[in-house]
């Protein structure tokens, strides 16, 4: 029984699955604890606030006039009065970042490389997320159906493609990190 179990654990796919699932559970557990503690303080979590704040700055940079920004316990509202969009906790992109980190932990055995790539990944995902929300504010301001089309199809694919690009670039990043 034990030998069967150990031979099963030697399978690369099973090993990846165990490492991936356990790291995802740990990361999500810590995050849920953090969300719980901010809810106890009747406060909005720092990540959602920062993503909303930067998205607001980006929308202003895109030329959205009279762009307002206000935050509550459940999230932030950005945009022109009457055309505001809600940025809730689920929009902060951190869960996608956790999946990316869990993948890195699943395949990597080099901790230094995992940490550096996790930081690069989170920054890149958040960059796309801020770009996405800022653009949504601008599209909402412009009016028309483009806003609904972009929010439903285009931006989701953008974020997924950014993660796939990071996975594809992983061997090159590993090589560059080895040289350092």
């Amino acid at each position, binding site marked *: 029984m034990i030998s069967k179990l150990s031979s099963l654990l030697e399978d*690369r*796919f*099973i090993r*990846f*699955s165990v490492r*991936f*699932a356990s790291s*995802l559970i740990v990361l*999500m557990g810590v995050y*849920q604890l953090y969300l719980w503690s901010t809810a106890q303080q009747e406060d909005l979590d720092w990540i959602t606030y920062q993503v909303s704040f930067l998205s607001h700055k980006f929308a202003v940079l895109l030329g959205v006039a009279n762009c307002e920004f206000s935050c509550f316990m459940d999230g932030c509202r950005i945009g022109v009065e009457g055309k505001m969009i809600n940025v809730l906790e*689920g929009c902060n992109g951190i*869960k*996608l970042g*956790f*999946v990316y980190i*869990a*993948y890195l932990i*699943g*395949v*990597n*055995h080099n901790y230094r490389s995992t940490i550096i790539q996790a930081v690069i990944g989170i920054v890149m995902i958040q960059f796309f997320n801020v770009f996405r929300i800022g653009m949504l504010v601008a599209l909402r301001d412009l009016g028309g159906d483009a806003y609904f089309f972009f929010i*439903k*199809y285009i931006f*989701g*694919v953008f974020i*997924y*493609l950014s*993660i*796939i690009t990071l*996975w*594809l670039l*992983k*061997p090159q990043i*590993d090589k560059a990190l080895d040289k350092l």
Partner: protein
Amino acid sequence: MINAYLLLSFGVGYFWFLEGNDSINLLAVWLIIALLKVVMNYLYFRATKRSVLHFGIATLVAIVARLAFGVSFLMVILSFQFFMEFNPVGGAIKRRVS
């Protein structure tokens, strides 16, 4: 896979439209969408000649991640598929013999 996701999104949009019209209820929409995702995932694993074990583990992890933590089902499935197709450390996982 991304194309399949786009097609699925259009399908999902249609189901939400039906739900908005009160033609079907929320639970039915949710179940149909979940079933569609699992079926499309199964078709992908069949097309790429992966074993039922691979499909089962990936789907189970994705369902648990989705239901327990609200993590994207597709992103978890993509992680497993990416590992099997392009594993950057040990190379791609062997396909089953058909």
